[in-house]
């Protein structure tokens, strides 16, 4: 099965990896695959969101279209929009 392609919205704390881009493209049929593809394109980015035990970090959320999900094996279909979110926070 070929990889589906997605728009990924990138929260501002992660944009040092994307040369400032708030919107990038990535491929993959699951969130795990999309994150791996992002890591290939933007080395170092994945570890800032996902820890060494493959858990989403405390102040990071991932969403597909309008649904936040903690399941990295979630299936994605062509055109799904992935959001990399950081908690809104104070000083």
């Amino acid at each position, binding site marked *: 099965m070929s990889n589906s392609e997605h728009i990924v919205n990138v*929260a501002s*704390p*992660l944009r040092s990896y994307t040369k400032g881009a708030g919107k990038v493209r990535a491929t993959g049929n699951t969130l795990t695959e999309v994150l791996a593809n992002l890591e290939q394109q933007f*080395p*170092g980015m994945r*570890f*800032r*969101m*996902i*820890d*060494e*035990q*493959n*858990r989403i*970090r405390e*102040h*990071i959320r991932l969403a597909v279209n309008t649904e936040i999900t903690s399941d990295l094996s979630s299936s994605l279909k062509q055109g799904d929009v992935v959001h990399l979110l*950081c*908690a809104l*926070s104070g000083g």
Partner: protein
Amino acid sequence: MPTLWISTRKGVFSLIGDKKRKKWILQKPQLFGHIIHHVMQDPRDPKKLLLAAKTGHLGPTVYRSNNGGKTWKEAKLPPAFRKANEGEEARAVQRVIWLTPGHAKEKGTWYAGTSPAGLFHTHDHGETWTPVTGFNDHPMRSKWVQFGTPDGEFLHSILIDPRDAKHLYIGISIGGVFESTDSGANWAPLNSGVAMDYAPDSKAEFGHDPHCVVMHPQNPDRLYQQNHCGIYRIDRPSNEWQRIGKNMPKKIGDVGFPIVTKATDPDTAWVIPMDGTSVWPRTSIDGKPAVFRTRNAGKTWKRLDKGLPESQAWLTVLRQAMCADAQSPTGLYFGTTSGEVWASSNEGESWKCIAGHLPEIYAVTFAE
């Protein structure tokens, strides 16, 4: 030029000094917005520096500079615990707290200490990091580190014996001081003589809270520590720490975070006492900041407060936020959680504020 690297909650700042260390110019922040825990210069290759960072949201990492701190590049493989086996505690590095350059003969080697307490090393100047399994997977580790500080337990004060690259010490808050003589393959507690007022068994081998441990570069058998429960000195091969903080004035006590030594005199050290009473002040005692110096390995201490605020100054200086240079006379520097940097170019006899209005300061390190 002399440079002070100021690690803050909102980025790294540097102060560039003149040769006499009298005038300091504050540079614009780098990695602005990042939480910076430590910046260290490589004495084996002074153009190289490492920096420990994270942000409020993102995981911890290490940045490297090959040009004296002009630009920074992230490590390819930052410190990370190995993947946990089924049924094991699944540890993840939350913060890289401490960076120590390896032995002079081991160019490219560095050590990092983390929270949760973990020890990591690199052999390529910080590009890729791997766990020191002798500590991280030590069968006693979970017993040694079972009591964390409010910020979690963490590993700091990684010391390398300049005579023997295999001989290491580490400090763990809370856990104690530990020693390895085989490059970190095995570890043993080294806490005898250190008080542990808060513990049910005050004579236990571990569970102590060293805030900062230093080894004298010219006499590596001489170690000092500023502990939660006092100031200590040990002269190896003795295994018994001596509480030299008992010689501090009674009204001051011997609670604090950092301790630094004079590069050319193992008997000279400086501390900044903090209020250790009641709930959790940890500020200058009675609102009157002072540095205390010993010139005889802790037998006597002298108060040094000329130039520091005389009253109503409730400063907190964290464990990594004081340093000494190797000049003569020794220059001393400390940063406060309220964002001030203070300097003395005469071994603490007088002090001057060289920067203010900075974010919360976690560490101050000197680079040539």
